[in-house]
């Protein structure tokens, strides 16, 4: 249990721009998250183990693919499947609807922002994303986790433990056992102010 609580949170980042994927990956890693980046909504669903034709993760892929994702952060404007479409699909799935989703967009369109928030997005970040924006993510993950813990402790009173043999909790433990925790090195920033030009 101690190991599970120390493992960093895993964020799935979705963006069709290679530069933005590189950036968000660095931003997240610098903020001590474990990161997986994908280039499209369909790849994101595939990673989650959620295929178009199935509502739940298929048992065939469950061994490889059920690495717990604690948060999805996605660009809004993407070809084929937009961030909004991806958000909808996640919220409509019984398996993943509780995963917090954050939307990023380079355009400040109130109607777009409201639409996403109404559909269940936790937060809307304006691009280009800053390091300080990463601090907004952890609260959403923790909020979800405490809700999950509460639900589990409620169900513990009514369900026999021995019948529980699936679900994200077991898979998280499995993922840790398989040695999937990433490097935890904390990067050191330059001590100089942001106006300084010393590059490490």
């Amino acid at each position, binding site marked *: 249990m101690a190991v599970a609580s120390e493992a960093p949170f895993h964020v799935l980042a979705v963006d069709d721009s290679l530069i*933005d994927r590189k950036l968000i990956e660095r931003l997240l890693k610098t903020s001590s998250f474990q990161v997986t980046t994908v280039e499209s909504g369909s790849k994101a669903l595939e990673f989650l183990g959620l295929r178009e034709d199935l509502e739940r993760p298929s048992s065939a892929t469950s061994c490889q693919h059920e690495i717990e994702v604690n948060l999805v952060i996605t660009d809004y404007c993407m070809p084929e499947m937009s961030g909004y479409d991806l958000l909808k699909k996640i919220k409509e799935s019984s398996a993943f609807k509780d995963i917090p989703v954050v939307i990023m967009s380079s355009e400040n369109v109130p109607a777009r922002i409201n639409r996403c928030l109404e559909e269940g997005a936790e937060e809307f970040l304006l691009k280009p994303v800053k*390091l300080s924006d990463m601090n907004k993510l952890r609260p959403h993950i923790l909020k979800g986790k405490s809700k999950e813990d509460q639900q589990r402790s409620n169900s513990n009173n009514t369900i026999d433990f021995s019948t529980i043999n699936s679900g994200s909790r077991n898979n998280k433990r499995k993922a840790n056992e398989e040695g999937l925790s990433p490097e935890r090195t904390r990067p050191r920033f330059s001590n100089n102010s*942001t106006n300084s030009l010393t590059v490490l």
Partner: protein
Amino acid sequence: MLGMGAGRWEEDMSRLLALLFHQGVLDEHFMQLQQLQDESSPNFVSEVISIYFRESEKLLRNIRTLLLDRECTDYKKIGVYLNHLMGSSSSIGANLVRNVCVAFRAASEHCNWAGCLRSLAVLEHEYCYLKNKLHELFQVYYIQTICMHSS
């Protein structure tokens, strides 16, 4: 002696960066790139900038090709390419290039062919300027690094 040399290069880099900031060529998001570079990712800035150059030049070529035929210019596609260039420019702090894209996008939305050609010329000019200055910056940075390691 080499130690003093490193200081001089650092001054040159400061001066160049200050100029680029003053001209509005770069903004604070470029500094964030530097903040994200560390021992675990020592080449982050040059990697990202290289990708930016490669992608931007491809986009600029594509846009120029689309404008070749006045009669059947696909303005919508130009808009898509411009959005991509705007996004990546904004992400790396290339403020001026991004702003030129905004003006260009307006011309494409009005299906203004002559306006698009003019905008493309400005865009190519500003992109070249940015590329040259960034190359200069990296040259100075690498010389500075060598001086520092030698002292």
